[in-house]
């Protein structure tokens, strides 16, 4: 498997070329995405932000190989995505439905790991490491539903980390937790990204969150979604919930992204069909 060979930075990991998607056909057809292209390099943290109902979930399902796009193609590590690709993990918004309620925390983290991942000892080491990275030491033997929402989402993140993906997709992962928990989880994402050198694609509808976390923010238009702007975020690292958000550059960037979203993007006349 190519999963464990180290990659140098700036190597292309995900390439999205002219992807479009239409649900159904005939008069009831709904065009969710129109001609969307972008790429992500190794080690980048890219967030995707757009108005609600902008086809973000459709896009993620296409990237994850759960849905075949009507047009265009997606490549992960140079290979065209036809089914669910190797080397990719996803963290869902709905953690309580993504975790297996009949398994304890440790068993949930171990669940996706197969004999291909390594010996039993190796898998247990990966699981312990991941649970430690998300700060859940000592909770291994609890059931997910005995934990708070934020802790459950941390279990889901640990499960994805132990799987050692090359690309981590996160689908509005913190949309269902309270604001305090949320900023803690955002910093957790930055920390594990540094620790694991993970490449992350983070979908959110929260503008502050998208700017705070990312190296680049991809702003999507109203449906049919297309790329409005690829905003480069030149904020210093490490980021900090208070000082980064006071930075005039942060204030400028979030205003810029917010305006792009409010305008719904410069939609070309050609696609207003």
């Amino acid at each position, binding site marked *: 498997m190519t999963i464990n060979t180290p990659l140098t930075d700036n190597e292309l990991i995900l390439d999205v070329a002219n992807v479009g998607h239409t649900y159904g056909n005939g008069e009831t057809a709904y065009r969710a995405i129109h001609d969307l292209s972008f790429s992500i390099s190794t080690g980048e943290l890219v967030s995707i932000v757009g108005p609600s109902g902008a086809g973000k979930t459709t896009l993620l*399902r296409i990237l*994850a*190989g*759960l849905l075949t796009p009507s047009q265009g193609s997606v490549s992960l590590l140079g290979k065209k995505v036809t089914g*669910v690709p*190797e080397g*990719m*993990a*996803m963290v*869902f918004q*709905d953690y309580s*439905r*993504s975790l*297996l*309620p*009949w398994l304890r925390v440790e068993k949930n983290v171990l*669940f*996706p790991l197969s004999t291909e991942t390594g010996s039993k000892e190796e898998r247990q080491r990966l699981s312990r490491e991941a649970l430690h990275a998300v700060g859940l030491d000592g909770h291994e033997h*609890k*059931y997910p*539903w*005995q*934990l*708070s929402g934020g802790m459950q989402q941390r279990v889901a993140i640990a499960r994805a980390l132990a*799987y050692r993906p090359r690309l981590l997709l996160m689908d509005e992962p913190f949309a269902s937790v309270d604001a305090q928990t949320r900023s803690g989880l955002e910093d957790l994402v930055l920390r594990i990204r540094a620790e694991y050198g993970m490449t992350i694609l983070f979908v959110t509808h929260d503008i502050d969150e998208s700017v705070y976390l990312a190296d680049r923010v991809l702003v999507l238009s109203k449906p049919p979604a297309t790329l409005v702007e690829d905003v480069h975020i030149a904020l210093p690292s490490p980021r900090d919930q208070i000082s980064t958000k006071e930075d005039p550059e942060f204030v400028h960037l979030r205003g810029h992204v917010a305006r792009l979203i409010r305008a719904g993007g410069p939609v070309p006349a050609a696609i207003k069909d």
Partner: protein
Amino acid sequence: MSTSTVAAPNMVVRGLKDLSIRFLYGFGFLIVLILVWEWATVAVPSLFFPPPSRILRTSMELFFSGSPAHLFLTEAITVDVAGTVSRMLLGFIIGSTVGILAGTAIGRSMILRELTDPNVEFLRSIPATATLPLFIILLGGDDGMRIAFIAYAVMWFVLINTTSGVASIHRTLIDTAHTFRIGRIKTLFRVIIPAAMPRIFAGLRIGSTVSLLAAIVSELMLATNGIGHRLILAQNMFKMADLWSWLVLLAILGFLLNTLMEVIERKVLAWDSLARSQE
């Protein structure tokens, strides 16, 4: 969160305690009823309702007067009860297995569901007991027919519950299994079936009751042994005390069966009841 420290064993102990208290109250009332019956039937003797003391004596004679080599069990136990129970268990196991497998397949496939839904609704409307004559014509009068009949009766309840349980699994759970590239077999046995288990168990519980019912009904015709067969014999010979003895034995059997299912369910679905209690 204070509830997060609740440990599983406490809940089980509390559950068993509730159960035994309930049992004691119910049992006390049952004794009162039996005493009233005894008093009434001694005061006004009836041909049809022998006093419980006589039913008890007849039962001892009927079931526990065998040779010491057979632990004092009579053939009524070693042949008739054993025959009924073994056919019932086999029929239950076969019917449940078919019901779970077919229900999972139907629950997973929208197309299959639309194809089978009206048929399932129609076929299950036929009272299973009414199909016994058909089973006898198709399969003859031996034990194989009885087991097939019991399995058929049980299957519907398990099938319908499994179908709805599997069909209502949230998409996120299935997507999770897919994105981690969990194989089909592992997804089926370790994600889909456990997730549908609370509903499947609802079907199994009804199914277990139905299996006893179908086992007895299947012995009312063309049988050479079994509890149903002995009930018919007692009826033909007008042995009222025998008839009542068999009914009491059936009550005990049904009670044991329900208790067994309850114990298994508490063990298998401990996560579900505990998760619910925290909501």
